[in-house]
């Protein structure tokens, strides 16, 4: 039996064993944590965003707002129908557009366009927006989210790939100042 203050051979081996396991565990933790957080780390520097085509400009009559769908730039084989996303396209005039996310700026429910009254209405909590996407009434704190778009040789493309959420900096057009 060893004295309490002296380290026995077996005691040393046990401690070395624990240390060894600790080292291996921390080495393994790197790829494990890397895997778990991959969906966040990949999203840095807007790696998820790409330009996707919405269709020919002529499909969108001037002064009207139409529903368009596009395929998400990042596709996994198990995505099924969720690869397609809808958006509202308003052709203001000529090559001037506004492309809105269907997701309400309140909590993301799909808003519907009513051309007669010129309003987007949300079925969930009653948010409403004017034709230019600005907030009209209800719980949303801001207007509809807008995609960046460009028109090239008669084709309209938008920068898409991320879900718009009200708190996130995913807003491409209205950049909020970062949290202090």
């Amino acid at each position: 039996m060893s004295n309490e203050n002296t380290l026995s051979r077996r005691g040393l081996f046990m401690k070395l064993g624990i240390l060894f396991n600790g080292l291996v565990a921390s080495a393994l933790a790197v790829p494990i944590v890397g895997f778990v957080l991959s969906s966040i780390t990949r999203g840095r520097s807007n790696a998820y965003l790409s330009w996707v085509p919405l269709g020919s400009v002529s499909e969108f009559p001037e002064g009207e707002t139409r529903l368009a769908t596009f395929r998400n730039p990042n596709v996994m084989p198990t995505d099924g129908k969720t690869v397609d996303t809808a958006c509202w396209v308003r052709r203001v005039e000529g090559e001037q557009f506004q492309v809105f996310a269907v997701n309400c700026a309140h909590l993301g429910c799909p808003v519907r366009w009513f051309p007669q009254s010129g309003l987007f209405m949300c079925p969930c909590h009653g948010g409403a927006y004017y034709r230019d996407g600005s907030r009209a009434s209800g719980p949303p704190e801001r207007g509809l989210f807008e995609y960046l778009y460009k028109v090239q040789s008669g084709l309209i493309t938008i920068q898409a790939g991320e879900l718009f959420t009200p708190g996130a900096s995913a807003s491409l057009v209205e950049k909020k100042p970062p949290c202090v």
Partner: protein
Amino acid sequence: MRLIAQVGDWFDRRLQLAAPIREAAEHPVPRNTASWFYVFGSAALTIFMLQIVTGILLALIYVPSAGEAWSSLQALNHDVTLGWFIRALHGWGSNFMIAIVLIHMVQVFLFGAYKFPRELTWIVGVFLLLMTLGMAFSGQVLRFDQDAYWGLGIGASIASHVPIIGPAAVKLMLGGPIIAGATLSRFFALHVFVIPGMLIGFVGVHLLMVLKLGINEWPMPGRLVKKATYTTEYHELTKQDGAPFVPYAIWKDLFFAAFILLAVAACAMYFGPFGPTGRPDPTIIQTAPKPDYFFLWLYALLSLLPPSMETPALLIGPVLAIIGLLLLPFVSGEGEKSWRRRPIAVLTVMLTAVTLGTLTHLAGFTPWSPHMNAWSGDPVPEKFLHGISALQRQGALVFQVKQCRNCHSLGELGGQRGPALDTVAVRLTQGQLIRQVIQGGGNMPAYGKNLSPAETTALVSFLETLHPAGQSPARDASRDAELGVVPDRQNSSQPPGSP
């Protein structure tokens, strides 16, 4: 019989479990705890076991892939023999489990069972409640339909409000930048591996503590809990007035557990499985997603909170509530146990129940949501159109076509987002009506840009007819005085001349 005894002996010599099991079963409990008030914990455990069994059965068919989950649920509902019944058992079991866990919690709270020395049992119980709710939410996601798809969007929107880590939390929750295959897979892992594993572990610890610390004695007004003396008092009580748990108390647990299982089966049989609703296709936007029953109160709360209150209420409210529940046994770990002498405890339970009940009830008919089809589906009732002029009828048309009906009801048909307009002419004068329509305000959008002057005139002249027979519409008295008009007390539905 001798053979069975021999086999039993053979196993017990190796397992050595018979003695501890017998000891646990026969441990003395205070006689008056053999009560129907003490059966909810074991009922929750029974339903949890039902959920494990039915969950495994569903996993035999269910495919956790965003492309196929919905069709595999359809197959369960329609093709697989009794698949619908297993789905219904699992769905109803989930509802019953939350209900029973909540009742159990209220009973424990009102009977002071969380006080010394059972603080940790209560804390573990709070985590069990959170995990049960987590199971309910992740289970709703696995029923991968339109409600699940848009419900995930709502969850992501809420998560995005968290300061600093919000956007990262959204991507972690969704497993990517959008709601897609990876999202369903990770909720499957949560629902089937992570949370159930934790639940089993926590339930084990919870039960172990019930055995080690003994069942809470029936609270008597005036019998106070003191840390110094409680344990001795409890042991004396079980010695003087105790009875073995088996069979003295357990028969009530057994009866109630069987009754609850029967109730789940009856609901499953009679009402059938939940959903799935429409296919989770993000391009189909004609949908009004709604959460499952036990989250309806949250859905109502999110609609009714003023915008400025929403983020703090969403982020701070739940944290405060959980911290409050966790701190409860430390704040009032001693003293009176009986609810008869704890009026604030009783009021807290009643207030919480009334609040949650009212919010859930409101979420049942969502008065805050526009009725998206009212403008095309709910006609202006005939009685509002009798004997009115051509201009006023034109106004009724404008009223219908411009979707006013989606938010305003007439004759109890239409949306309830805005006030009912059956008697609006009594409340607002002509000038006020025009201003409200053109400029909006008070949660109404401005229609100035979407109505021509002619449409506005027609609409307002129709609105001015909306007053009870025999009651005059509102008039601007100062203008009358200025123009020298004597108000006609027997005013008919004729509107005053245009301004």
